[in-house]
């Protein structure tokens, strides 16, 4: 594809090829082993949660059928993918955006827990600041100004422009 710097648009569906160029000889297909195990974990959880539901009825299907059959298929597929990973050479996992993960997901979780007690204004500004920390070229002043402006814009747009029932201010004390 002749793309040396696909950042930040690395959206190409075919970027897998670039990864393999970066790590030419990963020992085993680590991607497949980890991915297969993740699928099996999800499948086992789903089977455990849906085990008490009935799977057969007059029509041959019941409320438990779809979860159990799809989860079983997922378990088998995960097993095949993981097992295959031990026998093939393949791609490693590559760079992981740890800092991005901490900031983005941390910011989102902060928003989730703070939006109802604190309201949008006191939640949105910290969310944007926490998120901005994820960037390698973080600039404090720019980030603060932008966070305040953007949060106020969103508050006006969603609350007044679109009449959404989203709290703007802390519930206590009353303003």
């Amino acid at each position: 594809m002749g793309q040396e710097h696909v950042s930040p648009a690395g959206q190409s569906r075919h970027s897998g090829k670039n990864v393999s160029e970066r790590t030419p000889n990963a020992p085993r297909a680590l991607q497949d082993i980890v991915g297969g195990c993740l699928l099996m974990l999800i499948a086992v959880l789903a089977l455990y949660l849906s085990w008490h539901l009935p799977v057969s009825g007059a029509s041959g299907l019941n409320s438990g059928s779809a979860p159990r059959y799809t989860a079983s298929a997922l378990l088998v597929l995960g097993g095949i993918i993981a097992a295959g990973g031990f026998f093939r050479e393949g791609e490693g996992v590559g760079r992981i955006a740890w800092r991005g993960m901490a900031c983005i997901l941390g910011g989102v979780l902060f928003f989730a827990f703070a939006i109802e007690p604190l309201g949008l204004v006191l939640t949105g500004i910290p969310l944007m600041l926490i998120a901005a920390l994820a960037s390698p070229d973080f600039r404090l002043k720019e980030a603060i100004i932008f966070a305040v402006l953007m949060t106020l814009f969103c508050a006006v747009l969603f609350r007044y422009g679109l009449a959404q029932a989203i709290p703007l201010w802390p519930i206590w004390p009353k303003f």
Partner: protein
Amino acid sequence: MDLLSNLAFGFSVAVSPVNILLCLIGALVGTLIGVLPGIGPIATIAMLLPVTYKLDPTGALIMLAGIFYGAQYGGSTTAILVNLPGEASSVVTTLDGHQMAKKGRAGAALAIAAIGSFIAGTFGTILIAALAKPLTEVAQAFGPAEYFALMALGLVCAIVLASGSILKAIAMVFLGLLLSTIGTDVETGALRMTFGYPPLADGIEFVTLAMGMFGFAEILRNLENRESRDIVGQKVTGLMPTRQDLRESAPAIARGTLLGSLLGILPGGGATLAAFGSYTVEKKISKTPKAFGQGAIQGVAGPESANNAAAQTSFIPLLTLGIPPNAVMAVMVGAMTIHGIVPGPQIVTEQPKLFWGMIASMWIGNLMLLVINLPLVGIWVQLLRVPYRMLFPAILIFCCIGIYSVNGQWFDVVLAAVFGLVGYAFIKLGFEPAPMLVAFVLGKIMEEKLRLAMMLARGNWLSLLDFSLNPLAASLLVISIILLVLAVLPSIRRKRDEVFVE
């Protein structure tokens, strides 16, 4: 003529001031996110769903559709001027488009891309209008078994045409189906996999899943690399292509349009595959294949026409059968559902205003995009100077508010964070999340139809495959099984990988 009067009715809906404005907004937003790398139409449409709550459904869908095809236009601008794909579907445009820009022919490349897109968009729109009636008439004769079989075939096609490992694509489809079963069972009222937690009783909200898996996970992926953008310095001049340019690119536009229209209708196809396919075709039949990669205008004209044609025609299965052929159309199903419209063949008869208005607006939108993109290209280039470090916190706050406001449920935001984490993990592990989203949308309907079909068949599984009882359903299922087996067989898989490498 039936078709003409329907189209005339559609235009009368689409040219109302509000709808024209919404179409323009959609086209502008689409161009914007198309130009900006790092944000795609799936996340954007999901993000803007809550914004459309107060609109009437026709206007809302006109706007959301505009975002999708608008992004196909915008993506080429970045590809040509910056050598970065603004959208996944314009990856191949970077090859020859940027070479043309380097040789000072950026204007001609942009113009051909826009003209090709417009011709393809017009053809795609006409195709939707022409196929709508016959296809819906066929679909109205479908019973639950036929519907289930058709959707199964759709999922199999999505698997076969997905890039990367077949097994991983199958796994993602089953994951999507599994996620769709969470919540209250419609038939028996049993709670399924809710952890006894009341907010999960309604199931996972589509917006939550789409924004987590596509919005958040995409941001995380983009943060892995430092951004570097080399915008072609010189001013873009000479927007008029020469007579020779037009002569050289006309056949490529025609071929790209036809190929794109076909691949757009196929489930799992869509804009990206169409662009890749068209580039391969153009290179193969060219008398001077060596010119490709050096700034061959056919390498811009073909793929750019193909991706826009596919963007239009992928609405056909959605609007006539109610089956989303790709992840963007799955988001459109989410949009329809939020507005209380059940996708399916009944839309044409029950919602003619929505159906024909949307089709007519697509052509108007394409016309607007031609104007938005060509003379105003300078403005869009300026936008590329907005750094990603400002863009992603803004996307994030929009997503969070959007997810929260769907049900006023803070727990949905927590779920989206979990999906973001899982989605990013799957991307890193080489799993493509798009088939999962399609399966999630189809899952609920498929289960319902299958259970209904089984009820009618009194629990006899084999009757679904019995050609004498259900000829159509049985043949669709058999085709699905054959396709799936062929795809998993190693020899065919190698051939398919070769196609993707090109």
